[in-house]
C-alpha cells in the first residue's frame, strides 16, 4: 500500500513536469515567433522607407549623385548577366558531377575524397571564394574585373548546392527503374539520359533555383574581385557584337550588381541614399523570395505528385 504522502509527492512531481513541458512548448512558439517577427520588421521597415522610391524610373535610371534621380538599371542588368554566366557554368557542371557520384562512381578513396570535398566547400565562407577568384580569374587567367569573373565565382560558390540537390533527386528514384532499363540492354548513359535525368529534373530544378537565389544576393565575393560600385552605362547585350570575337564582349565588361548597388547606397552618409538602399533591398528581397517560393512550391508539388 502506498502512503498518501508518497502519492501526493508523485502527483506534485507530475504536475511540475507537466508545467515545464507546457512552458517549453510556449517557449518554442515564442522563439519561432521571434524569427517571424524579425523578418516581418525587416520587410515592413524596408517597405515603408523604400516603397515610395520604387517606380518605373527607378528601374530605368542609372545611379546618380542626386539620390532622387538614381536608379538600379545597371545593377539589375548586371545581376541578370552575371546570373546567366553562373547558371550556364554551374548547372551542367553540378548536374554532371551529381550524376557521376550517384550513377557511375566506384566506391574507393577518390570518390570519398570528392564527397568530403563537396561537404567542406559548402562551409567555406563566401569571401574566400572572392579571394580565389581574385587570384585565379582576375589575375592568373586575366579575365579582369568582369561579368565572366563574377559569374564563374558565383558558379563555384553554388556548385555544392546544385550537386547535393542533384544527388538527392537521383537517389529518390527507385532502383527498379534502373534495373528495368539495364534489363532492356541499355548502357549506363542511356539509362541516365532517358530515365534518371527526366525523372529527377524537377528536383534538380529546385536545387538550381535555390542556388541561384543564394548567388543573386551574394555581395562579398563580388566586392572582393573588385566590381565597381558606380556604373553609369550598360554592357553590350549578350551575343550581339560583331562576330566572332564581338559576340563575347559582354563577358568582359565592367559591371555592378544589385547587392553592391545597395551596399554602395547604404555606406553613403547622406540619409536620402538610405531610402534608395531600402528600395533596392526591397527589390532584392522580393527577388530572392520569389525564387525560393518557386522552389518550395516545386518541391511540394513534386512530393505530392510522384508515386513510384
Amino acid at each position, binding site marked *: 500500500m502506498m502512503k498518501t504522502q508518497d502519492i501526493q509527492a508523485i502527483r506534485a512531481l507530475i504536475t511540475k513536469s507537466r508545467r*515545464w513541458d507546457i512552458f517549453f512548448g510556449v517557449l*518554442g512558439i515564442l522563439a519561432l515567433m521571434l524569427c517571424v517577427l*524579425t523578418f516581418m520588421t525587416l520587410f515592413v521597415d524596408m517597405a515603408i522607407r523604400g516603397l515610395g522610391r520604387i517606380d518605373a524610373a527607378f528601374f530605368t535610371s542609372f545611379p546618380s549623385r542626386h539620390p532622387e534621380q538614381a536608379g538600379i538599371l545597371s545593377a539589375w542588368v548586371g545581376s541578370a548577366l552575371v546570373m546567366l554566366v553562373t547558371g550556364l557554368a554551374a548547372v551542367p557542371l553540378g548536374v554532371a*558531377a551529381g550524376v557521376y557520384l550517384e550513377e557511375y562512381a566506384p566506391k574507393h578513396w577518390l570518390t570519398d575524397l570528392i564527397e568530403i*570535398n563537396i561537404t567542406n*566547400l559548402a562551409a567555406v565562407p563566401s569571401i574566400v571564394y572572392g579571394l580565389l577568384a581574385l*587570384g585565379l580569374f582576375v589575375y592568373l587567367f586575366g579575365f579582369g574585373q568582369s561579368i565572366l569573373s563574377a559569374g564563374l565565382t558565383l558558379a563555384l560558390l553554388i556548385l555544392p548546392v546544385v550537386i547535393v540537390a542533384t544527388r538527392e533527386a537521383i537517389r529518390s528514384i527507385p532502383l527498379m527503374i534502373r534495373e528495368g532499363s539495364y534489363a532492356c540492354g541499355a548502357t549506363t548513359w*542511356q539509362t541516365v539520359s532517358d530515365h534518371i535525368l527526366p525523372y529527377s529534373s524537377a528536383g534538380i530544378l529546385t536545387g538550381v533555383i535555390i542556388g541561384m537565389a543564394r548567388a543573386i544576393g551574394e555581395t562579398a565575393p563580388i566586392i572582393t574581385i573588385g566590381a565597381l560600385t558606380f556604373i553609369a552605362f550598360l554592357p553590350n547585350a549578350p551575343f550581339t557584337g560583331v562576330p566572332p570575337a564581338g559576340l563575347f564582349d559582354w563577358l568582359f565588361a565592367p559591371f555592378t550588381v544589385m547587392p553592391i548597388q545597395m*551596399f554602395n547606397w547604404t555606406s553613403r552618409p547622406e540619409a536620402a541614399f538610405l531610402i534608395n538602399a531600402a528600395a533596392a533591398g526591397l527589390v532584392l528581397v522580393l527577388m530572392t523570395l520569389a525564387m525560393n517560393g518557386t522552389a518550395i512550391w516545386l518541391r511540394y508539388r513534386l512530393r505530392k505528385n510522384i508515386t513510384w
Partner: protein
Amino acid sequence: MNATVTAPPVPTPPTANVSDRLRRRASRHIKERVIEALLFGAALVSVFTTAAIVYILVKESWIFFEAVPLSRFLFDTQWTPLFDDAHYGIMVLLSGTITSSAVALLVAIPLGTIIAIYLSEFAPFKVREIAKPFLELLGDVPTIVYGYFALVFLTPLLQKIYPDLPGFNLLSAGLVMGVMIIPYVASLSEDAMRAVPMALREGSYAMGATRLQTALRVVMPAAASGIGAAYILGISRAVGETMIVAVAAGMQPSLNFNPAEPGATITSYIVQVALGDLPHGSIGYQTIFAAGLTLMLMTLLFNLLGLWLRKRYREVY
C-alpha cells in the same frame, strides 16, 4: 540527341554480318567511356576548387610573409597596414571576429536549439510544414539586407535603451548575424533529431516521461553528433559572415572584446581593402590574402572538428 543509339536494337537475322554488330557494340562502348570521363571531370572540379583556394591563398600570402615575419603577424597588437607606420597584428582583426561571432552564437545556438526541439518534438505536423520552408526563406535573405537592417533599424533601437552606443558597433551586427544563423542551426539540428528512431521516444513515453524530458534526455543525446555538426556550421557561418559586419560594425580595427564598440573583422577588412585602390602586389594589398588564409584555416579547423564529431559520436541504428 542520339536517336541512333537510343533506338531499340533491330533484331538481326542470324545470317546478317556479325562483325558489323560487334563494331557497333565497340563504338557504343567508346562513347560510354568518353561520357563517363566527362562526368568524372565535372566531379573533379570540386577537388580542383579546393586545391585552387589553397594554392592561391598560400601563393599570395607568401609575398606578404616574405616582407612581414610570422611572429609580427601573430603577436603584434596593432593592425595598421595602410599607415606609414605599418603594423600587421592579426589578433586585432581576430578580436573583432571573435566578439561578433560570440554575440551571434549566443543568439543563434539557444534559439536555434529551442526551435529545433519544438519543431521536432512538440509542433503539430501543420506547423512544421509551414515553419520549415519559412526558416529556409529567412536563411536566404541576402546578407547585405541584414546588414542594412542592423545599421538602420537595430542600432537606433538599441541606442534608445543604451544611449552611449556608437552608430557602428559589433553588438547589433552580431545580434542580426545571430538571427541570420538561427535557420541553419535549427534546420540541421531538427533533421538530426528527426532521424532518431521512434522506438527510443516510445520507450521514454512508456516510462511516463513528458515530451520535454524525452527531448532533453533521450532525443538530444541520441542526436548529439548531428546537433554538434549543426553548431559547428553555425560557427563557420558566423566567422565567415562579411556584409553584416562590413555595413554595421564600422571597419575600425581595435584590439578589444567589447561588443558595444565599433570593430573590424577579418572579413570586413578584406572588403575594405577590395573597395580601396591599392595596387595588386603591394604589401597592403597582399594582407587580404594573409587574412583570408587565417580565415580559411579557422573554418578548416571547425570542419575537421565537425567531421571528427560525426565519426566519433554517431549513433547507428
